[in-house]
């Protein structure tokens, strides 16, 4: 059954359209950057974008930052939301079930197909953007990776929040901290009000420490290509896992309704709600459990040393979402009347 689902995925023009569009956005951005040579000013644009002019081999990371907030979740939600609801509205679901395909087996096959799509999409984005980056900016020397990164505040959710605060290499350490904080949408010191409710995320003490460590690694050594590749691989894996959370939401909704559009939009609505709440200080008590809370933690793979706390938390959180939602989807799908 899994093979059949993969064939369906591959033979579906939509799959390739989605992946094509995902690869197109970073390419367009790269062309603009390469022709104008104007890098985004500090604090604006996606993470890594300011650094890519020096090193094209960093461009895959910048591309991930570009597609992660909207494009990738939308693509995943479309594919996963359509998984069961699409078969249902097309009427093919009943023919699969009387073929017979066991409902659990069908759900598992759908999940596997969605995972394959997510992995494929991320791989496609990374590989095309590597080619684009190296072609347009040259391989360069991905030296000061950490300098291109925003502060670890953890609670900036949207595109704007991912702003990078690149500083001149000669900049004083103190200035680096300050502008990074401002750029990343307010770090610990800038917003003490939010800190009380969310000690794990925005502990002022920890934030200061992190800022210190970030500064101390400013002298950052050049990343060897293998090191960069390993970090990139880690980041890709993390992004895939983050997207599996999205897929689980959409797949669960997909078993509830016969409308793929409904399932897709429902999943996106859940994500937007999560994004809004993550950036809302008043919702600090629930932020650690929101699906998008640790989405940006993949950036931590490029810190020196790799900052694992948010990554680990994010992996656990997504695993929780996937397990709970897939169980719910299974419980619902195996007991429901198929009337479409």
């Amino acid at each position, binding site marked *: *059954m899994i093979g059949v689902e993969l064939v369906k995925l591959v033979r579906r023009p939509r799959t390739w359209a989605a992946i094509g569009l995902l690869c197109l956005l970073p390419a367009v951005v790269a062309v603009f950057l390469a022709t104008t040579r104007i890098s985004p000013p500090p604090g604006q644009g996606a993470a890594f974008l300011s650094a890519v002019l020096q090193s094209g081999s960093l461009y895959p990371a910048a591309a991930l930052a570009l597609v992660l907030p909207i494009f990738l979740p939308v693509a995943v939600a479309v594919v996963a939301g359509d998984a069961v609801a699409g078969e249902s509205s097309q*009427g093919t679901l*009943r*023919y699969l079930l*009387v073929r017979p395909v066991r409902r659990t087996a069908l759900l598992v096959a759908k999940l596997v197909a969605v995972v394959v799509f997510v992995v494929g999409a991320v791989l496609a984005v990374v590989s095309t953007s590597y080619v684009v980056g190296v072609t347009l900016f040259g391989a360069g020397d991905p030296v000061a990776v950490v300098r291109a990164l925003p502060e670890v505040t953890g609670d900036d959710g949207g595109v704007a929040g991912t702003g990078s605060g690149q500083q001149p290499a000669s900049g004083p350490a103190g200035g680096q901290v300050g502008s990074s904080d401002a750029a990343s949408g307010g770090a610990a010191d800038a917003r003490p009000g939010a800190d009380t409710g969310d000690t794990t995320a925005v502990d002022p003490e920890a934030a200061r420490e992190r800022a210190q460590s970030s500064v101390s690694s400013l002298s950052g050594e050049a990343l060897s290509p293998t090191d960069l590749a390993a970090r990139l691989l880690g980041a890709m894996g993390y992004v895939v896992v983050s997207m599996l959370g999205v897929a689980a939401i959409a797949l669960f909704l997909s078993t509830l309704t016969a409308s793929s559009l409904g399932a897709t939009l429902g999943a996106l609505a859940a994500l937007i709600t999560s994004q809004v709440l993550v950036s809302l200080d008043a919702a600090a008590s629930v932020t650690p459990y929101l699906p998008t809370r640790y989405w940006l933690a993949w950036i931590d793979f490029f810190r020196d040393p790799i900052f694992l706390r948010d990554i680990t938390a994010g992996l656990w959180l997504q695993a929780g979402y996937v397990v709970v939602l897939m169980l719910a989807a299974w419980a619902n799908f195996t007991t429901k009347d198929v009337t479409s």
Partner: protein
Amino acid sequence: MIETRRLTKRYGSRAAVDDVDLHVAEGARYGFLGPNGSGKTTMVRMLLGLVYATRGEIEVLGRTVPARVSEVLPEIGAMVEGPAAYPHLSGRTNLALLDASGPRRDRDGRRRRDRIEEVLERVGMGAIDRRPVRTYSLGMRQRLGLAGALLNRPRLLILDEPTNGLDPHGIREVRDLLLELNAAGTTVFLSSHLLAEIEALCTDVGVVDRGRLVLEDALDAVRGPTGRLLVRTPDPEAAVRVLGRAVAERDGETLVVDATTGGPPALARHLVEHGVPLDGLAEQRRSLEDVVVALTGPGSDAARTPAGRRSRQGSTPTGELDPMSQGFRR
């Protein structure tokens, strides 16, 4: 083959299928007849384990459904509520995907391809090209659906409105195909709102009306003689003069005559002796239509819905009645 006991499916307070005891014998061609919205499709879905019953038991091929439905389904070919296929793929690819989704046995690629070609041939689509299903006519989709139902050489065919969208030629072909399969031992369970289709094909008939099974019998028993004769004559005036009171109804050149002693031969002799020319003479049989209308008519309806809450809309199949069933047949 199929047996249900007190089968009931409720959606909220509405009973889509209400206390149905169905009996389909092995080798039968069973026509499940009822107007649209009378619970036919829900019934079919329950037999296939797609919809779970609120109450009652189902046994298909000797096994309980839905508990052991996965053992039963490999021996069933089904078409439920119209055909469905992936529109961007060709008919052949659709069948291949459906086939590959099936149980693990028969995974051999060559036999699979042969099997697909065979069922396509059977439904008269052996020569289809690689056009996507999106471009198919409803009739072609219907044939494709039928081909899918035949993939696992079923012992039992459960078909919901299989001739929908087919032209008269196609209807005849499908009917011949079903007869052929039935002769080879396949039991056919056919649900339809078309009286003519059931009359032309089935050996047994079950009539459902608003979720209840109001009749289940052999078709021949249902369509028993009425005790009247149909007389067709170019000179109806003369016939009426000769037969007098015996003429019950008159419609153009056709008279409905109360049977006399001696049956048709005696009547024929009588008429000819009195110089009345005869075009035809036949026993009048109850048509399935008469029976169905009587069973699902307003009388029974008024008795069953006291407050008149439920609308009568769509509960009589008059729109689909076979206009030929009154005349001379066979």
